[in-house]
């Protein structure tokens, strides 16, 4: 039943620092034969009845599924050496048989410990005990118990089975300590048949408020979850699925953000408990990011409602829109003359300019029609800040999109015209070389044209070439304006994404309790003395901030600019329309 490790390996005794001051007794822990390491979990003090200790360990083993056993003896000499105690401790190995049998001894006034590991079987001459080389590794029991190793060594689906066997290396040590939490549950005021020394909390502290909050959280969660399900049922109602509405919803970033917020709240208030640590962490991160978002939103709200800032804002909005339209008119008039000394095609220039001017005129009248309602609209938008800063930022982004609708229209007209010219020019250029685009085979074929065809083609080519600069200029100016608007919207989206996806709880945990998120361990060699076993201190190596963000980042929502710079430039050159929301539609498909 007792398996022994590789006899060539150095025996590693993992000893909790909190037990260093304990009285003499028995070492209780787990023996990991694959790595020949003994993980000491606690010290059982004298006096004890061996059968009671065995019974207690069997109980612990049953609940924690960790093979807890008596590993050896611990002797802490406070007074002058007592020889009878040494003999007594050796005699204990006959009662609790373990292979190998550890004998740790701390002498008075010395920082160096002596440690012996004896094994009777497996030695070269049967009968005579052989001794192993031993190194003592000290660990902080509380930190190892609370820390969570990254990346997780055990897959979540393995957790239920005999998971302790699945963990390898130092993960086995972490796992052993984490699983034997049952052993640590008793605090120092407990009076049981077996007196143990291990990491202990200083008794359970209780606050009436915390207890009340715990007691109330269940019903409140249920109530809020049912309210949220009602809201999502209303939003799924058929009235909102009539034809143009889903199309509009998908274009508005406010709707996306509201949907995401609803999802977040549903997850936070879901009555079922999070099963594994990563889910728990996700929930906590989401909760903190929602709280921060709402707090920022409320700050914004209080700032807006103080000193009549809403009226000021509403009063400023119409003149700004007017001013933008005016500037655009000036720009168009400049383009209709001789912009930057370029000589344009006068007729086309005038036609295009008048067309755009008429558009601006329409836009201004639309804004003035709206102006009496703007204050009320702004007031309601300000109220939305209590749902969170991200929601109001999304609304701001939508308002910018609506107020710059004329720029978008100009851009589309310019791009379409430009695209038409570029296509015409490229196909006529093929005509010159005696080639044509074969639609059926999707390739360029050679073709012999008639004289008339060539004549007409040349004529059209010439016209298009001479008209191209005028169109290209309009296209260039409006594309630049459009790109400016897209950049502003993109920055707002970036901010919203940042608030939505930053794992604030994990970052706070890393800042205040670095041992909770462990990337691994590090060892420090403690002071040495010749002839004594090697002593190491095992510390927890915290996860770096970059890895914390990478591991716990919440999934992103909203549109991301997935254009690469090359494809963006290509699209701009050929006059294809660039939509910021195109990618989102693709993602939904």
């Amino acid at each position, binding site marked *: 039943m007792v398996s022994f490790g*590789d006899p*060539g*390996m150095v025996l590693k005794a993992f000893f909790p620092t909190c037990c260093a001051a304990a009285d003499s007794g028995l070492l209780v822990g787990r023996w990991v034969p694959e790595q020949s390491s003994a993980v000491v979990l606690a010290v059982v003090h004298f006096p004890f009845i061996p059968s009671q200790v065995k019974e207690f360990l069997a109980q612990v083993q049953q609940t924690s599924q960790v093979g807890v056993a008596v590993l050896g003896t611990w002797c802490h000499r406070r007074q002058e050496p007592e020889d009878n105690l040494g003999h007594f401790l050796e005699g204990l190995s006959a009662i609790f048989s373990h292979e190998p049998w550890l004998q740790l001894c701390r002498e008075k006034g010395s920082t160096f410990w002596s440690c012996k590991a004896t094994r009777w079987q497996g030695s070269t001459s049967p009968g005579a005990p052989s001794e192993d080389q031993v*190194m003592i590794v000290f660990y902080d029991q509380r930190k190892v118990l609370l820390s969570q190793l990254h990346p997780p060594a055990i897959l979540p689906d393995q957790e239920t089975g005999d998971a302790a066997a699945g963990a390898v*290396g130092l993960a086995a040590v972490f796992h052993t300590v984490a699983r034997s939490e049952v052993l640590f549950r008793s605090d120092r005021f407990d009076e049981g048949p077996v007196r143990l020394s291990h990491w202990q909390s200083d008794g359970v502290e209780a606050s009436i408020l915390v207890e009340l909050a715990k007691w109330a959280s269940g019903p409140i969660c249920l109530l809020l979850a049912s309210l949220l399900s009602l809201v999502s049922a209303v939003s799924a109602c058929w009235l909102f699925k009539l034809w143009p509405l889903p199309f509009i919803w998908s274009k508005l970033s406010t709707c996306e953000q509201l949907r995401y917020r609803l999802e977040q709240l549903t997850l936070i208030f879901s009555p079922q408990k999070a099963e594994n640590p990563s889910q728990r962490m996700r929930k906590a991160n989401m909760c903190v990011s929602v709280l921060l978002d709402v707090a920022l939103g409320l700050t914004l709200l209080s700032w807006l409602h103080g000193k009549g800032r809403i009226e000021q804002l509403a009063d400023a909005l119409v003149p700004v829109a007017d001013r933008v339209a005016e500037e655009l008119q000036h720009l168009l008039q400049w383009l209709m003359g001789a912009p930057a000394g370029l000589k344009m095609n006068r007729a086309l220039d005038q036609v295009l300019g008048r067309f755009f001017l008429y558009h601006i005129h329409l836009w201004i009248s639309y804004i003035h029609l709206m102006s009496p309602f703007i204050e009320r609209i702004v007031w309601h938008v300000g109220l939305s800040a209590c749902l969170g800063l991200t929601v109001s930022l999304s609304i701001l982004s939508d308002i910018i999109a609506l107020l710059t609708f004329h720029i978008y229209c100009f851009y589309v007209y310019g791009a379409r015209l430009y695209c038409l010219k570029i296509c015409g020019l490229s196909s006529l250029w093929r005509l010159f070389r005696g080639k044509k685009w074969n639609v059926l085979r999707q390739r360029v074929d050679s073709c012999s044209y008639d004289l008339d065809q060539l004549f007409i083609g040349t004529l059209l080519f010439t016209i298009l070439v001479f008209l191209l600069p005028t169109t290209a200029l309009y296209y260039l100016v409006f594309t630049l304006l459009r790109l400016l608007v897209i950049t502003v919207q993109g920055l707002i989206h970036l901010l919203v994404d940042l608030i939505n996806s930053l794992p604030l709880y994990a970052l706070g945990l890393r800042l205040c309790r670095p041992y909770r998120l462990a990337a691994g361990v590090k060892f420090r060699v403690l002071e040495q003395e010749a002839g004594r076993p090697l002593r190491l201190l095992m510390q927890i*190596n915290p996860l770096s901030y970059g890895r914390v963000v990478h591991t716990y980042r919440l999934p992103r929502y909203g549109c991301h600019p997935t254009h690469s710079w090359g494809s963006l430039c290509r699209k701009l050159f050929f006059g294809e329309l660039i939509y910021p929301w195109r990618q989102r539609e693709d993602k939904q498909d």
Partner: protein
Amino acid sequence: MENEQSFSDICGGRLALQRRYYSPSCREFCLSSPRLSLRSLTVVTSTVWLAAYGLFTVCENSVVLSAAIFITLLGLLGYLHFVKIDQETLLIIDSLGIQMTSSYASGKESTTFIEMDKVKDVIINEAIYMQKVIYYLCILLKDPVEPHEISQVVPVFQSAKPRLDCLIEVYRSCQEILAHQKAPSTSPQAHQKAPSTSPSIQKASIVSRGK
């Protein structure tokens, strides 16, 4: 047991190798590079400030001068905290693992610990670095799925870049410990790599890109 020896790095700078033998199963190698010299600090600072002063005489805006001071301070802090590595330590513990620590000039320490059952071997490798071929010590990690394959190569003493004579010293000591670990599990005939023979330098199978 502790001894110190002086070596040079690939550019000819001085390096001090400290060896600490705590026990037969635990050794530590500590490579310390020279500290930030006052001369280079003075040269860089005065160059930046002179350039800023030149710019100031041209555009007559005092923002330039304060910006130069801030840039120098922030640059120095960043350099000490993120770039300048004073000491690199390799701690090898039998049947436990290998630990690499780099201590920055500001006191920050970054540590990586590799467990022994993930380590396949420690070798000296050749790499092309800028315009020259250099040797470096590296740890080969086992692939968790196929134990005979190598999943990753972890270079050691990345910032100090010591020369081959220094690497051989470290390599031999590491091989002694690794051989001690392997010895009981495998038959003695299978051990061709005796620690006293010259280190096997694996031909440049991995070529690191010049920085």
